[in-house]
């Protein structure tokens, strides 16, 4: 009874305040974020937008049938995403395990491992272009000093994509290490003690305790790596400009240059929607896969 009266008294100012907060925010979202990308199905007329003609799926047909670069960029992006998942996941899981189990100095290690995350990608790209210079770069000097063959790094048609993957792994691993370490520290220590008493090996407790209880964080990390890597743009652009040739041209770069260099908004929009679809499908697939495996 009492609560109902309180509720009645407070309803009015809350209602007004709620409107005051939500209406401008929703207006902002409607104006800027909820805009559907209709460019993909119209022939956008730059000078007279109202005269743009509806063209149906013509843009999609053009990029799929007539555009070799779209396929090249798409394949590069998928390769990049697969590679970075394959390197980033085990690496950050191993480092997170060390970070969660280290007895002293966790803060200092965390500081160092997270440092590349906070600096600007543009600066990181310039830095690694310097280090990876095939003629005077320090990486090749290090390789030759231990007797290994030199690499063309970012300028080699084969090594360029891997080099971009290495730079991005170096730059972003800190995020996933911190996320996974938090997940590991969240697992109650008693479980491991109990397993030890029961005579479980280190591998058994990893497979039977750590992995299942880390599932939530692992899923998050895999999905974040995948979504991020399929949208890769700045690193590849500043490291290689998409080259040599088209060796590191990614879908996002294709979209941006189609739209803002070649002024083909329709084609670019169609390509970006294809990317969106691929991201949705892969993410759904991953979520399904991670859910059905070890359920307790």
């Amino acid at each position, binding site marked *: 009874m009492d609560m109902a009266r309180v509720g009645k008294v407070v309803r009015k100012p809350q209602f007004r305040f709620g409107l005051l907060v939500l209406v401008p925010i929703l207006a902002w979202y409607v104006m800027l974020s909820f*805009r559907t*990308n209709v460019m993909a199905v119209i022939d956008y007329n730059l000078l007279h937008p109202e005269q743009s003609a509806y063209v149906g799926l013509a843009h999609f047909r053009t990029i799929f049938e007539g555009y070799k670069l779209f396929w090249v960029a798409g394949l590069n992006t998928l390769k990049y995403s697969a590679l970075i998942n394959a390197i980033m996941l085990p690496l950050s899981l191993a480092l997170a395990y060390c970070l969660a189990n280290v007895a002293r100095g966790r803060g*200092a290690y965390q500081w*160092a491992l997270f440092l590349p995350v906070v600096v600007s990608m543009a600066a990181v790209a310039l830095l690694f272009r*310097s280090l990876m210079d095939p003629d005077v770069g320090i990486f090749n000097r290090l390789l030759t000093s231990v007797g290994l063959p030199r690499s063309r790094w970012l300028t080699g048609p084969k090594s360029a994509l891997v080099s971009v993957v290495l730079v991005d792994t170096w730059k972003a691993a800190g995020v996933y290490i911190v996320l996974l370490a938090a997940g590991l520290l969240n697992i109650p220590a008693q479980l491991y003690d109990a397993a030890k008493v029961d005579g479980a090996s280190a591998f058994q407790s990893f497979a039977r305790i750590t992995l299942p209880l880390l599932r939530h964080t692992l899923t998050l990390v895999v999905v974040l790596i995948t979504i991020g890597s399929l949208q890769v743009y*700045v690193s590849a652009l500043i490291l290689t400009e998409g080259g040599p040739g088209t060796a590191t041209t990614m879908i996002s770069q294709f979209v941006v240059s189609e*739209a803002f260099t070649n002024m083909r908004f329709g084609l670019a929009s169609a390509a*970006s*929607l294809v*990317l969106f679809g691929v991201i949705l499908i892969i993410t759904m697939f991953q979520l399904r896969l991670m859910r059905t495996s070890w359920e307790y």
Partner: protein
Amino acid sequence: MRDKRGETAGQVVIHAVLLTFALVAILPFVWMFCASFKTYVEVINSRALLPEMWSLDNYVEITGRIGFVRAFQNSGSIAIPATIAIIVTSTAAGYVFAKYQFPGKELIFRLILSTMMVPFTVAIIPLFIAMSDIGLVNTLRGIILTSLCSTFGIFLMRQAIETIPNDYIDAARIDGAGEAWILRQVIVPLAGSAIATLAVFTFLGQWDSYLWPSIMLKSSKNHTIPIVLAGMRSLYSARYNVWAAGSMLTVIPVMLMFSVAQKQFIGGLSMAGLKG
């Protein structure tokens, strides 16, 4: 109970692994720091890490020739207002979504969250056309306008404010406090650490942002730091000592901020990860 010797051996391995990768993370920055004081000839020839002579020439060159000072001002006059705006909108919206009950609340919240799924390249073309319709292409105001709200921020603040007990809010209401007063005097202090996390991440995101500003800001007087840095590739082709100086100026403020606010970065990220 536990095998003491095995424990110590394990710790040694763990320290060795962490130390190796910590060095991998830090050494490129050390190289960059040293290279920024070297001459070009020294950078490409010398095997020594430390410069023979600590010279400020590279810094003088970039601050003098390519509006680096201007770029700092531009980046700051985007990042600071955007961060303030996002803190205000995220905290207010987070409060409403966490503590108010009204029909359609979850639907609206989910609609807002769904924008996180959309790749930026899908949004960028209609966004650019919207900016050009209202004449804000090539203005810093245009960038700020598109950075007034943050979906991640609204999500984070709702999570944080939901943990605040309703009793505090009800007590203030019974004492006759207005909603804006409650937000300022009750919610903001209690959600302080989440707000700090949001502030550092937002500021950094804006400071480092490249894609959208590079499309919006065409004239060089509006260029932000990442755009100026990227431009150095052609302006100072392969002059790694000058690149290093430009990069140093960019990363130093950020590294200082991170060192001071490490708890906010790591703690906020861990919290978002465990709850997300």
